[in-house]
């Protein structure tokens, strides 16, 4: 199969859907050139730097029959639009009793590794997960990104596509034919039996590398990629943990009230899964600081394959002691 980059997969998904549906249009402070070339400046708009207004404009256009795509670019810039996200987009369908549908795709780049420091290196998707009313995903491969984007553009609700800065240039197989990946379905990126690693985005690749490494010492690691953050495929995660009895969660974001905490909770609150849990769960996340600029500092803050390996070894060693009561 041909290989394309993660960034190209994103552009392809949008272009194909725009060809199919004239109600789709695209807004961004700096638009993607191939899209402007193909669809013109009317459908691919270069906007003023006013993300708050544009996020709201996308809601109004959606309620009037269009299917806008608002590209915030770095997730950092979405915070100026947070009122429209939290108070309007997430609630408008419910609050008005389902009068209208609001098909909107928001795109946001996340993650570090770019040496852009605290404001531009952020992984705040968990803040959005805490809301009720928005769907969202964070794919780890070009294939997943394209398939999820297509589903999202066809969805009749606001959906956020978080896309990893670290993966933009990474390549992977993507079929020429049309396909779509449903929201809420995890993908087992590697099968294994000793420990489950739930990982997202770049950490999926780090987890796979860790698994490869540990396979040499006879440790069999299962890597589960939820892909979608909301709705989360809790059952796939639980099934894997019931099988392996051990869970490590790897996330580029900080731990506090994050994706990783949510995964820990959905596992430990399920009686059958909890019963099969042989060791404490383990979060392998960014250190709890804003992201610093200098490479040595930045690399120290973010988790990587080494820390995943350490986390796996911990949960393998720290088997559950005999029940204390």
């Amino acid at each position: 199969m041909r290989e394309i980059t993660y960034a190209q997969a994103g552009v392809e998904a949008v272009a194909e859907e725009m060809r199919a549906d004239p109600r789709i249009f695209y807004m961004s402070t700096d638009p993607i050139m191939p899209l402007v070339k193909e669809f013109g400046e009317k459908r691919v708009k270069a906007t003023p730097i006013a993300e708050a207004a544009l996020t709201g404009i996308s809601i109004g256009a959606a309620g009037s029959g269009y299917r806008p795509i608002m590209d915030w670019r770095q997730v950092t810039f979405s915070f100026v639009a947070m009122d429209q996200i939290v108070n309007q987009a997430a609630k408008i369908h419910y609050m008005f009793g389902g009068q209208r549908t609001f098909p909107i795709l928001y795109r946001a780049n996340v993650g570090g590794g770019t040496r852009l420091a605290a404001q531009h290196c952020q992984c705040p998707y968990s803040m959005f997960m805490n809301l009720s009313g928005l769907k969202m995903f964070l794919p780890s491969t070009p294939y997943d990104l394209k398939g999820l984007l297509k589903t999202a553009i066809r969805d009749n609700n606001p959906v956020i596509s978080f896309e990893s800065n670290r993966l933009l240039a990474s390549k992977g197989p993507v079929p020429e034919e049309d396909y779509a990946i449903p929201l809420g379905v995890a993908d087992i990126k590697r099968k294994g039996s000793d420990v489950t690693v739930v990982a997202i985005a770049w950490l999926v690749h780090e987890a796979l590398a860790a698994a490869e490494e540990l396979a040499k010492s006879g440790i069999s690691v299962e890597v589960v990629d939820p892909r979608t953050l909301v709705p989360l495929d809790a059952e796939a995660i639980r099934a894997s943990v019931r099988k392996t009895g051990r869970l490590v969660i790897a996330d580029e974001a900080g731990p506090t009230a994050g994706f990783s905490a949510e995964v820990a909770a959905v596992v430990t609150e399920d009686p059958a899964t909890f019963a099969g849990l042989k060791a404490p769960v383990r979060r392998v996340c960014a250190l709890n600081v804003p992201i610093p600029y200098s490479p040595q500092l930045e690399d120290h803050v973010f988790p990587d394959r080494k820390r995943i390996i350490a986390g796996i070894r911990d949960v393998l060693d720290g088997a559950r002691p005999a029940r204390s009561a």
Partner: protein
Amino acid sequence: MNLSPDKQREMLRQMLTIRRFEERASADYHAGKIYGVVHCYIGEEAVAVGVCSALETGDQIISTHRGHGHCIAKGADLNRMMAELYGRQGGYCKGKGGSMHIADFGIGMLGANGIVAGGISIVTGAGLAAQMDGNERVAVSFFGDGASNAGPFHECLNIAAAWKLPMLYICENNMYAAQTAAAATHAMPDVAGRAAGYGIPGIVVDGNDIFAVYQAAARAVVRARAGEGPTLIECKTYRWRAHTERVGQPDFRTPGEIESWKAKDPITRLSAQLIAQGSMTDADAKAMDDEVQASIAASVAFAEASPFPTPEQALDDMYAA
């Protein structure tokens, strides 16, 4: 201005409907039948009705936390409005929204909104949609003097001006944002003066003179339909009641100021004009009020007959299919 006597009487009827609806809504709020909060528009009726009288089917508007007037002026169904305030299944939002979130997308009323300035960009999106549709529809944003100091006002006026969107921005300057006087938060008394910075018309009108409001709006609508872009219209007006119906909130406005504005009641004024010009008799006016009162009573009956949502319905409408 070429308003038929029928249309003028209809404008009066709509203002009266807003007035009577809110008198009832505030009474029922204090009686514990309506929950949360009610913000009354009483005293400002000429703005909503004057502007919406210049609109046609297919044009869209958005409102604020003070939304009943805009709903009624755009033609919303009183029964479903009252049922929403009563929190019933038959309400516009099935009891999920209440006074601050009443909407009727079917008639182009994109909702009241609990966030100050929160609706300005949403309705600007409706204006963008109208422009892309190319069908000469317009979109109208109502907002307060308080909202005019918030970021979205600026971002949207600039975008609408740069993109020549078919928009009307209607600032309802009632001189206060909750307890805070506009004089303390605006360096200039006229919000309309900000329009020049975007190269669009900025017009100040007496918001208690329904014909002045109508005329300004009608001109702006012509401009918008012709593809010439947005207009900012500032309507100077006043609310008679406190910021909200919630008890125990301070209101620093002097009785003298309130009384002086009551003397400028837009309803009395239009009613007197219609009688003076022979378009209506005293008896007609009385009959109109009776009819309006009956429609309000009917809306309450409708609301009371509508069942409360079942608890499980809280889970409905989470996502669209």
